[in-house]
């Protein structure tokens, strides 16, 4: 029984990792005042880029870097539309999702069904992983997990305790006042959206070069949309995002574990997406989302 629980926790953390990465990115973007509904598409681009580069170079770390760059590049389109052209963020975000999914599908077509020779494997942390019970669960994970947790803490630190963070948050809260303080609001927004794209792409890379070692169309399976909901669930706080992401990760895992017992996996998934909606309602909606929606 204990083994089972540990295995569930272990797998929960794995399943929650891409959700956490994506959510950090979306938090940064929304804190600067730009809603990015394109996460799903950027994730797909990240996944396919990471896969292709790893496939050809044999170096998954190079694949990860390429994915981040690709995710940032494609996010520029959304930044341009919503910041420079001041167009509707919902429409432009949807366009980004479609574009991302489409491009990923096209690029990845020749690679469907080809497994990678190498992937980013679990990396036990010396000493820590030897701690009984907790060790193997927390400290024998994929590097993506460590990165996600560190980045969440880092993002929280940047937002709350640095000048850059104050600028990002001020831009989202009141762009006009921020502009009069000599801050280049457009630049802050561009950078935030682009950084958000990098995080989403990282989440995608986790799927194709660590979680599994293959590419198939639609492998992001709606995680990008869950990220949008998680962002609200986390109340735009990267630390709370950890709680939310791993909670959702747990639901994913339970769903698959209960499947053989004859319980429909879909049944459990049902209540999950409802939660963020409630959270968004009982707590004051933030300006970032109300703005121009």
């Amino acid at each position, binding site marked *: 029984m204990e083994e089972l629980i540990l295995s569930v926790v272990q797998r929960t953390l794995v399943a929650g990792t891409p959700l956490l990465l994506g959510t950090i990115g979306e938090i940064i973007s929304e804190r600067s005042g730009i*809603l990015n*509904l394109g996460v799903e*598409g950027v994730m797909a681009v990240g996944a396919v880029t990471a896969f292709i580069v790893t496939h050809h170079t044999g170096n998954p770390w190079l694949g990860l870097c390429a994915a981040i760059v690709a995710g940032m590049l494609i996010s520029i*389109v959304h930044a341009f*539309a919503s910041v420079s*052209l*001041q*167009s*509707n963020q*919902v*429409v*432009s975000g*949807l*366009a*980004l*999702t*479609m*574009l*991302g*999914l*489409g*491009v*990923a*599908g*096209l*690029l*990845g*077509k020749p690679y*469907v069904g080809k497994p990678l020779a190498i992937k980013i494997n679990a990396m036990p942390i010396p000493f820590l992983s030897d701690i009984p019970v907790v060790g193997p669960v927390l400290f024998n994970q994929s590097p993506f997990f460590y990165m996600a947790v560190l980045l969440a803490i880092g993002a929280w630190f940047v937002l709350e305790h640095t000048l850059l963070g104050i600028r990002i948050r001020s831009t989202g809260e009141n762009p006009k006042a921020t502009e009069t303080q000599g801050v280049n609001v457009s630049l802050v927004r561009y950078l935030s959206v682009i950084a958000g794209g990098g995080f989403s792409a990282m989440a995608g890379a986790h799927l194709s070069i660590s979680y599994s070692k293959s590419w198939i*169309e639609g492998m992001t399976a*709606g995680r990008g*949309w869950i990220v*949008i*909901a998680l962002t*609200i669930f986390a109340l735009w706080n990267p630390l709370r995002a950890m709680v939310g992401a791993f909670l959702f990760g747990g639901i994913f895992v339970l769903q698959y574990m209960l499947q053989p017992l004859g319980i*429909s996996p*879909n*049944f459990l*998934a*049902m209540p999950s*997406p*409802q939660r*963020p*909606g409630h959270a*968004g*309602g*009982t707590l004051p*909606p933030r300006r970032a*989302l*109300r703005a121009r*929606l």
Partner: protein
Amino acid sequence: MLHFKVSDREQISAIGTFLTLVLALTAGMVVIGLIFLLCGVNPFFAFKKIFSGSFGSVFGFKETITKAIPLILIGGGLALAFKAKFWNIGAESQLLMGAIFGTWVGLHWGPVLPSPVIVPLMFVAGFIGGALWGLIPAILKIRFAINEVISTLMLNYICAEFLILLIVGPWKSKKKFGFPYTDDLPDSAILSLLPGSRIHTATLILAVVAVVVLAIVIYKTRFGYEVRVIGENPDAAKYAGIDFTRTTLLIMAISGGMAGLAGIGEVAGIHHYLSYPDSISSGYGFTAIIVAWLAKLNPLYVIFSGIFFSGILVGGDAIQISLGLPAATVDVFNGTLLFFLIMGDFFTKNKIRVLSGERA
């Protein structure tokens, strides 16, 4: 010396708007061609295939019209919602709910009622199903200030799972060799097709009539006026005594209801039974967002933009088969064209003048 000046455009002629649109679509096509090129596909060949597969052949054109039906219905409803700045991106599940309600009516009363009775009943049920599902985000927004983008998105998931639950559980047919499908609708509940095609005429006529009526409603009636005032300035609408709650509920009932009509139309006209969500709707609820946008939120123009994007869907299927491209190819079209439409909007709303002069 030249410099650019961006300023609000006071008024733009219909021809100007149309030309910008054509320009945006053309530029979008060029970019799509480039993307194809980068992905190792000959763009000229691909475009030729898409055109011949959608508009350039009799079979293709029939398919284009078939798939335009749900796009026109949903696009019209979305145009109404977007006019009021209610961002309904849950048409996909409003369609499914319409399909569920309508199918239930068809399965239960189809065997005992004649076609002229059961078919209208199913459409009514489909409308109600979509409308009820559309009302949920409206109520959440009015009562709890929950952003409709998030709620409609999440409702898409809930509805899809609900449908799966139905077809693997209580509604699962005993005659389908264990597949998760419902029973077939009885013959009386099945829509007749235009011979030699899959065009279910009843829904087609319904769609065209609905968007025409909707255009009249938006531009000629008190309700439409109120919708537009709410969309343009909700504070002024409140000040003017326009009932936000009532109007929003009505908007979402209509918007969801029209998607519901599309849903039951798809089942009664094409599939004849309920199955997995992706096979009942191939993303019509999302594609219709672009349809509405291309139509500049005018339901009348939705007829044309619906046929246009339907052509891309059908043509996309054609190149999938002939060039072995992935299903997502159509997304490249939709995403890119949507971006260029947004850019076109920028140019119709803003005047960019190239001036010559000393001052910069």
